[in-house]
């Protein structure tokens, strides 16, 4: 069992941290170039081979690793050196509870494609996320620079505020799926529901044709407002534009990471990109059905394929399909975040706070109330 967990952890690290995160820096450069009618990264080459600029992440890493690592005068040396690590570690360990595939049985061997699946899975991510704040805050404070300190102050206020709303905006999802365990949440989404089924509640019989129209039972269809609010708040937690007030270049130069150079700056940079993938995976799991294929449940796939081939092959094929689906959803969410990041200008600092406390917080509480009433109607009291 420990070997299995270790293998899954290594797989996640290889695919996401070592594989996907560097490619995202390239995606960001190329996507912004396309959006701004430029060519984008295309110069780094090995023997004249540029591969669409895909070698740029490699060149960046070599450059960052060989640069001098400066600690400013009057800085708190220990805190200054450790802050980037505190920022990067939570981003990586948050993957542990995000399922990248379902539960598969080969003969008498059952495997669940998630590294850890505690009963309180989503709370684990929130707990890890609240620790991530310290990397930013310590970095800003320990640099002994007024701009950095301002960045740290902005970061701590912003992240604390949005944590509250982030938690409240997904309560509706817990209520619909009645679990906090991410694997079970995806299993609950691996089905479909009748769009017009609610008519029967009000006493109107559903006409035959309409009764056939079904949607995948994904969180986004039950909690559209929750989806938008969760995406907004979790993007604000990541401090990327349009929520990048802690580093706001035009106001406080580079904010909390102003005094960092070399790979320590690179770690801040990397942790933001790793968090982009965490956000993509988490939103895909909570709202877009995770690894589940739309309209094709695991039973249907395995049942149909095992009529032609043996059941082990069917299950294996299903696992590959599920993993591919999950990665496609992750890539879609990464694309969406990049598109938002290059479309919207930065919020003013007071606008960020107003959005959180005056708009999103009341809306998320209203969302919980409405969800509660609807669930009471659908499932009846006493549940």
């Amino acid at each position, binding site marked *: 069992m420990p070997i299995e967990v270790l293998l899954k952890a290594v797989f996640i690290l290889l695919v996401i941290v070592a594989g996907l995160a560097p490619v995202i820096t390239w995606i960001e450069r190329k996507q912004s170039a396309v959006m701004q009618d430029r060519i984008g990264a295309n110069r780094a080459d090995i023997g004249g081979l540029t591969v669409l600029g895909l070698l740029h992440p490699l060149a960046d890493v070599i450059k960052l690793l060989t640069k001098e690592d400066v600690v400013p005068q009057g800085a708190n040396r220990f805190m200054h050196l450790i802050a980037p690590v505190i920022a990067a570690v939570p981003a990586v360990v948050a993957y542990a509870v995000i399922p990248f595939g379902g539960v598969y049985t080969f003969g008498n061997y059952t495997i669940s494609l998630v590294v850890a699946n505690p*009963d*309180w899975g989503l*709370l684990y991510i*929130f*707990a890890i996320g*609240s620790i991530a704040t*310290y990397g930013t805050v*310590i970095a800003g*404070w320990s640099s002994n620079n007024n701009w950095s300190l301002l960045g740290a102050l902005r970061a*701590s206020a912003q992240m604390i505020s949005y944590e509250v709303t982030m938690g409240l905006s997904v309560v509706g999802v817990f209520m619909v799926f009645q679990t906090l365990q991410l694997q079970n949440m995806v299993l609950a989404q691996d089905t479909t529901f009748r769009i017009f089924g609610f008519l029967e509640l009000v006493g109107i019989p559903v006409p035959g044709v309409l009764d056939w129209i079904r949607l995948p039972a994904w969180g986004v269809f039950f909690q559209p407002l929750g989806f938008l609010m969760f995406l907004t708040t979790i993007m604000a937690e990541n401090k990327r534009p349009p929520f990048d007030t802690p580093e706001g270049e035009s106001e406080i130069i580079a904010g909390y990471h102003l005094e960092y150079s070399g790979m320590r700056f690179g770690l801040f940079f990397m942790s933001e990109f790793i968090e982009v993938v965490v956000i993509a995976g988490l939103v895909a799991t909570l709202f877009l059905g995770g690894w589940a294929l739309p309209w094709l449940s695991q039973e249907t796939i395995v049942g149909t394929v095992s009529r032609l081939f043996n059941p082990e092959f069917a299950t294996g094929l299903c696992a590959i399909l599920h993993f591919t689906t999950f990665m496609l959803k992750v890539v879609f969410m990464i694309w969406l975040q990049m598109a938002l990041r290059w479309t919207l200008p930065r919020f003013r600092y007071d606008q960020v706070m107003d959005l959180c406390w005056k708009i999103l917080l009341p809306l998320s509480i209203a969302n919980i109330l409405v969800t509660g009433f609807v669930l009471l109607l659908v499932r009846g009291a006493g549940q």
Partner: protein
Amino acid sequence: MSAQQVLFYLFAAFAVVSALGMVLNVRNTVAAALSLVVTMVALAGIYVLLEAHLVAAIQVMVYGGAIVVLFLFVVMLLNLRSDAFAPGRARLQKLAGALLGIALLAQIVRSSVALPAAPPVPPGFGGYRQLGIALYTDYVLLVEIASLLLTAAIVGALILAKRKID
């Protein structure tokens, strides 16, 4: 020693050392606050070993995350220098603190010697389901009173803070 015992002593050592770090770092308030974070997270580890998973998660989220970040926010906003704290003069306070500390330690030792054996943990103990059911059925009145108290505190803080602006 089982793995659980090793983990317990590890977390306990972390908690004690960082708690000392918090108390002894009187001059450097930020370092003291960060030591408090390590204490809180180490305590959360011990809660996990005690099967109180929800409490552990909330410990990290609320105490390890939100509250100490607020401490840090205030400390950084005031930008306290290390010489802002004069060397301790109040002998009497120190003496009273030491006496109370010794009394607390004696009480802890006295009661921990006479502890009964732990009862077996029922299935699902410490989960959000059990806690939620307990909070909203048996203890619903206490929850309501606490929420009223918190609302009063928020309104009071707002009034105190707003008085100068208007």
